[in-house]
């Protein structure tokens, strides 16, 4: 439902291929604006207050010379600048 975007921010592996020892890992990264408190949110709608529920999803390729651990994937995501939270302007 568009006014209650509930996509969970975070990341997930959508494809992994291993060629000659290189791990080609395609990762989907989802970022969202923080949820409003429920009652405040309802009031904002009732009062037609300008506000957004922005989310963005990026799918990109990461390479590793071994099967990466979760910590290694998260380090690679950090290095690429992934932030699950979109700062509300």
């Amino acid at each position, binding site marked *: 439902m568009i*006014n209650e975007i509930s996509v969970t921010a975070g990341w997930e592996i959508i494809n992994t*291929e291993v060629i*000659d020892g290189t791990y080609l890992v*395609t990762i989907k990264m989802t970022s969202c604006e923080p949820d409003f408190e429920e009652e405040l949110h309802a009031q904002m709608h009732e009062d037609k207050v300008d506000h957004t529920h922005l989310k963005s999803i990026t*799918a990109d390729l990461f390479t590793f010379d071994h099967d990466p651990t979760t910590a290694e994937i998260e380090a690679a995501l950090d290095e690429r600048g992934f932030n699950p939270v979109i700062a509300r302007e």
Partner: protein
Amino acid sequence: MAHGLLVKNDEGDILIDSDFSHYHFLGKYNHSSVTQVPDITGGSDANTNSIGGNSPDQNKGMENMPAKGEIYIYSVPVNGANPPICFVKPTSSGASAPYTGIVLTKQSGSNWEIRVFQSTVTSASPVLYCFSPLAQISNSTSTTHGLKTFNSSGVTTFDSRFKPLRAVGGGEITSPGLAHTGSSGSSWDVSLSINASSVSTSFTAQSSASDLIFYCPSLAHACQKYEYEQADSGWYSGRRYSWHRSDIWWCFYRSCFRIASTSSFEANYGVFARGHFYEHEAEDEPWWSFSNLFGALLGFLFGGAIFGVLIGAISASTFTNVNVEAGDYLPYSNSYRNTSGNSFIISKASYYD
């Protein structure tokens, strides 16, 4: 070999074998036309012109995409089932020369069509030096002496009156894995340019790099994509809005090669084909629309603002189908193929000019 002729050098390498159909110089050919793979693009915009809020409209074409290489088409007049071996005389040599490779060889009537891919567009064009078995060469000669061999079926296999294929170097070369490493883009800005380091291998040193020609068909290829998607909804200037945009950009890279020096041969990629597809839908409505008022009325009657919000939300689309499926447009994604064991042969243009 019960009978015939076998000539070897001091190292035991075979120079002439009457049982083997030696390749002889057929001719030197310029391209007949130049082409590029057309961009594969498309987009669907629905109701996005009047939408309020922050609906993104930038980069819906091929902005920031790396430039494609050119494909030179040659028609080699050799009529027979055996394809000619075509050496490329590149437009230049050295560390900044474009990469070149044969990407297609097919029989077309009484000719063979050869397509040569070059990684960047240049004013000069590569030239082909082609070789074929004697049985497919119709060139005549007035020379009346020399050495001619036949196989057991009586077919001419070597004739010293025609220039033989002379290799001065060769070996095997691999191609890089991925053509682009690192981030593929940020937000609506794609970044798929080739940044792989060239793979280099050496061959027997020659006196002049600009005189060298090479045979090395393009086998390796890579395909990489970048996907980005945004969605938003809410209120803006008294209007309820919702939008969703989803994009996919991709490049298909073919391996190609260059003479880097008098003794060095290099492999890398060129952008052979590319594409960009997107889907963008949006909707907005003023606060006094039927659905918004109906939602607010229910909320008032049943004592809950949230109820009003939820009913109101039904009026605008959720756009859950705004997705661009990669498999519909590109051969494969984020991978590479056939990067190892590509044989190459080096010869000299001056032997045949």
